[in-house]
């Protein structure tokens, strides 16, 4: 186990191994997203119970994006913790590249939710617990990005961003339980571990496919951008210089 962590913590090892894993991640995620898109947009039955009609098809981008927004933040905080405790640089690089993607996913969740709200709730925004805590999540992501860039030395920026990410994790349970703790317009969780989803199988199955596809996308993109970050930070290291020389 320790040798495993040590190997993956080495930028050189990570760079070499992620090159092998990455194509598979892309292939699986694109396959899942393509399947989920066709299934969700064209084949899933139109919603009739709540009279939402076809506007419910927004769920297939809204829920995966909202899942990812929170998962990316937790991953970023976990990577920050690993960096702070064990000083593993690759963890800090991964945390660096996760932040912008997390911000994008949070924005997608907010935007698709707002667009969905117009025909369903009659309003695109409410200062409701779920929506507000998601907006705070977006600001946390932007804060982490800004804080990282606000220091002259990269090391100070990394430490400050790590601390903010770890503290900001407090917001995640607030988002999760916001629909139970406060009266809110937002409906409760779509997927729970304890019970079956409240919608028919042919509706939630494509959603599950989409969620998995988005997770795959996150992993693939994080690997790809961490590799870039490794090249950028290690460019004066012998192995990078040799790598570039060999590639020519």
């Amino acid at each position, binding site marked *: 186990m320790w040798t495993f962590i040590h190997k993956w913590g080495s930028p050189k090892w990570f760079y070499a191994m992620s090159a092998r894993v990455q194509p598979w991640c892309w292939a699986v995620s694109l396959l899942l997203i393509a399947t989920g898109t066709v299934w969700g*947009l*064209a*084949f*899933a*039955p*139109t919603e009739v119970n709540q009279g939402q*009609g*076809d*506007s419910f*098809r*927004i769920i*297939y*981008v*809204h829920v995966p*994006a909202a899942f990812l927004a929170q998962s990316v933040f937790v991953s970023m905080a976990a990577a920050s913790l690993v960096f702070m405790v064990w*000083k593993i640089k690759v963890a800090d690089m991964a945390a660096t590249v996760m932040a912008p*993607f997390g911000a*994008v996913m949070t*924005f*997608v969740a907010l*935007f*698709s939710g707002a*667009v*969905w709200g*117009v*025909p369903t709730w009659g309003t695109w925004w409410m200062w409701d617990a779920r929506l507000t805590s998601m907006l705070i999540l977006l600001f946390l992501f932007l804060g982490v990005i800004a804080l990282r860039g606000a220091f002259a030395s*990269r*090391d100070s920026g990394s430490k400050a961003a790590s601390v903010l990410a770890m503290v900001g994790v407090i917001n995640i349970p607030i988002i999760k339980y916001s629909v139970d703790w406060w009266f809110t317009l937002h409906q409760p969780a779509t997927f729970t571990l304890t019970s079956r989803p409240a919608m028919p199988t042919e509706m939630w199955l494509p959603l599950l496919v989409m969620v998995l596809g988005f997770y795959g*996308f996150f992993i693939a*993109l994080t690997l*790809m*951008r961490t*590799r*870039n970050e490794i*090249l*950028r*930070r290690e*460019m*004066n290291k012998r192995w*990078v*210089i040799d790598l*570039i*020389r060999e*590639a*020519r």
Partner: protein
Amino acid sequence: MAFSSFAAFLAMGGHGPYVWAAWGVTALLMIACVWHARIERRLLIRSLTRRTRREKMRPPQSGKTAPNSLQASQADDT
């Protein structure tokens, strides 16, 4: 198939603008993420290749200071 025709598919039962706006923005941003990562990689490789080429032209001794157009002084160890 939940729709009878392609026109019905586009109309989304009258909710077309909402559905396509949400899906469109999502797709656009995700494609932009991939595109950005690819450009980032290409630019990095290009500048690193250019640096090695430059270093090859000058004698090895003076190459110690690692002349490069990118941020220098990042040779922090450990």
